[in-house]
């Protein structure tokens, strides 16, 4: 007998800004969003065991987002171009337009670094896109 499942239809809310107080909602332009929480694995194995063991080292969090490009005021280029080479703030929730809760947590990176931005990527017959990678920063998951 099949077990009922709750699946996730990708429709996240994506906000990016210089700080949490200025994080602009760019959800309508987002095509993909991947936030990865990672702690470097430091090997602590010894000859006392034939198994390898690891301990957590530095956190290496990352947020990669793809936007349909727009050069209008307060949209993709205007919002993000000023953040290049700075530490900024990103947040995303699984379901756009739904209150933050235990079942719709708000994931964020504070002081995450935006190293570069492709300011123009044009291909014949295609919509322009821009992929942004935010590196590092402090990860948090809020449920309220």
């Amino acid at each position, binding site marked *: 007998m099949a077990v009922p499942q709750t699946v996730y239809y990708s429709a996240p809310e994506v*906000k990016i*800004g*210089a*700080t*949490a*107080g*200025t*994080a*602009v*909602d760019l959800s309508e332009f987002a095509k993909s969003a991947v936030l990865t929480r990672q702690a470097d694995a430091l090997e602590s194995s010894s000859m006392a065991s034939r198994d390898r063991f690891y301990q957590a080292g530095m956190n290496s969090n990352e947020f990669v987002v793809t936007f349909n490009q727009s050069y*209008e*005021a*307060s*949209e993709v280029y*205007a*919002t993000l171009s*000023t953040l290049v080479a700075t530490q900024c703030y990103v947040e995303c929730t699984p379901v756009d337009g739904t209150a933050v809760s235990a079942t719709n947590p708000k994931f964020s990176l504070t002081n995450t670094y935006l190293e570069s931005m492709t300011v123009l990527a044009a291909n014949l017959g295609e919509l322009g896109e821009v992929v942004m990678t935010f590196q590092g920063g402090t990860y948090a998951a809020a449920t309220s």
Partner: protein
Amino acid sequence: MTYTVNRAFSDHQPGDVLDAADLSEAEIAYLSQIGAITANDVQTPAARAKTKTAKSEE
């Protein structure tokens, strides 16, 4: 001084009117630069110059 929100940011929605006291100077500068907020009840230098010229022509 008040500001009208053009694009949703933080917990604010388009159409919201914010008092300058609700934002820091850095936030106002950034949000104004990207066009997420627009200042209300303020006359720009260009508008003032235009008004002055019109009067002098009269």
